């Protein structure tokens, strides 16, 4: 079967042939006894850019794919071609530069596949230097914020300053709104819920900032979402986007519990692996009856285009 280069549209007959051959060749893909690789002779099927991955140990449990080689094997098995990787060490460590340095070294083992995403906390002293090093020393394309775990709100003045500095440096800023359902937090954690409302005002003042909200289901269900969507160019990932057929219904403005309609271009693929099973985000793409163009945009096209905008 000839390969279909990325971006090339298969006609229906070609697609059916591909599907039937793959299906005939492939017993249940997710079985442990035969789950080593995608079941297709197609080497050039569209890949995925996963914008929401973490490396290293989750502080509260040993995750199944907590080692980088195991996680990489898992992601590649599902045709991920690029992963934007933060560090779970950022959740509870205060020396974020140490976190970012170790992350950079780890990502150098797979430089074209793993793209390190440094962590910065605008509520702590020295964040400007952390941001500078992420950009100038570690060569990162993005940084990640954890307002819930680092305990600050979106009306923190330094957040606006960080967004301005990041925009000047053409850095993407990912804001991780949730990492874990607060109902199952370790009792030692007592995190204040994130109020999304002030964020639209902050972003209006920094229109060149490129911001993505990770694990944004709860935020999307909050009141200020319409303003955020109308007045800013904020992006979301789909890792914790719940509801059957959620992706398609969100794009169509018919989500079960999210009132806002979210344009396709605002959604990027993200899995929250290895905390979530990678299959959850991947299956979200297939649970909705999306068009091929929509699938390709979500899998990698939107992320690629957004990266190339560089603060335009």
């Amino acid at each position, binding site marked *: 079967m000839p390969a279909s280069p990325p971006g090339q549209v298969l006609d229906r007959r070609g697609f059916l042939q591909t599907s039937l051959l793959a299906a005939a060749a492939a017993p*249940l893909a*997710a079985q442990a006894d035969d789950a080593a690789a995608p079941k297709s002779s197609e080497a050039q099927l569209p890949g995925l850019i996963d914008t929401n991955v973490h490396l290293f140990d989750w502080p509260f449990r040993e995750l199944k794919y907590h080692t980088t080689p195991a996680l990489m094997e898992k992601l590649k098995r599902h045709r991920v071609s690029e992963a934007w990787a933060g560090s779970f060490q950022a959740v509870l460590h205060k020396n974020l530069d140490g976190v970012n340095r170790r992350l950079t070294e780890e990502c150098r083992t797979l430089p074209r596949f793993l793209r390190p995403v440094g962590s910065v906390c605008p509520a702590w002293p020295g964040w400007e230097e952390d941001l500078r090093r992420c950009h100038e020393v570690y060569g990162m394309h993005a940084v990640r914020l954890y307002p819930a775990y680092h305990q600050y709100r979106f009306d923190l003045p330094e957040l606006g300053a960080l967004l301005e500095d990041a925009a000047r440096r053409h850095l993407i800023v990912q804001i991780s709104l949730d990492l874990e359902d607060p*109902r199952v937090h370790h009792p030692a954690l007592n995190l204040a819920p994130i109020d999304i409302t002030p964020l639209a005002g902050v972003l209006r003042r920094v229109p060149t900032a490129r911001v993505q909200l990770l694990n944004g289901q709860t935020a999307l269900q909050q009141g200020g979402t319409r303003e955020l969507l109308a007045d800013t160019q904020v992006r979301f990932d789909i890792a914790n986007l719940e509801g059957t057929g959620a992706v398609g219904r969100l794009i169509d403005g018919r989500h079960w519990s999210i009132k806002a309609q979210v344009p396709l271009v605002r959604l990027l693929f993200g899995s929250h692996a290895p905390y979530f099973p990678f299959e959850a985000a991947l299956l979200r793409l297939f*649970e909705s009856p999306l068009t091929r163009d929509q699938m390709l945009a979500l899998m990698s096209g939107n992320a690629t285009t957004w990266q190339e905008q560089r603060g335009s």
Partner: protein
Amino acid sequence: MTDWREFVLNPADYGLPSRDELVALRIWDLHYHGFLASDPLTQHAETMPYVDRMGIERVFSLEIGGSLDRPFAVTGIETQQLEILQRDGDRIAGLTCVDPGEPEQSVEKMVKWIRNGPCVGIKYAGHGRHDIRASHPKNDAIIRLAAELQSIIYVHTWLKAGGDPRRPGGGNLSGEATPMDLVTLARRFPDVPFICGHSGGDWELGIRAIRDQPNVYLEFAGSDPHSGAVELAVRELGVDRIVWGGHIPSRSYATELAKVLDADLTRAQRMQILGGNLRKIAGPIFRAKGYKI
């Protein structure tokens, strides 16, 4: 017109089962919330195409006759629900909600909807109406009748972090059972199978809570997907004690199937979790009512 069975890319090319492979797993979804909405009939009609798309063989609705919040209230859709269960009986089965604080009304409801009606089980919801949980002895009449009818007994359980001092379960609603509450109940009826809903809410603790009570099954549904959860349950409880649900439409088949697909299991084990074990629990009442297994 949407072709719900068409996929523009083949899931098998991405390390996922194809729809045909999902169908072959013969999946039974114990946790269907299609009628949980202000317009329940419309929501049900919009939800079922996803059931078909994802190759699910059968769903169990948890809101037949009454609602979770008001289990004895007239909803106005009882007649339509009866028609749906009759017309689509090979695809949809029904559980009806009871209240441990109202055992007499609950028993009357079970007689109407299970003994004399189409339903096959009961659900205990998580509620804050009062502080009588499923473990309360007042509630034993419900279980005695459920055992006589060989009904499925589903108990919503959670362990929400909260309270002062802060602890797992300290944030539960007053009438919301913990897995420990369910074990207290199950000890009084050691020959009756119980289903511990939502894997106890906090699966790491829920699994430990029910481990030594062999007539309690663990259900994976209605919580975030956590890599490794199903494997721990299999290791601690055995694959025979795990059942599965989709919790749609508020959750998704993506979330719930991922829990099982991520786990290192054989195909036979996957089939047990995704429907085989539930068929064993439901078998007696299904056979009594002449339903397809």
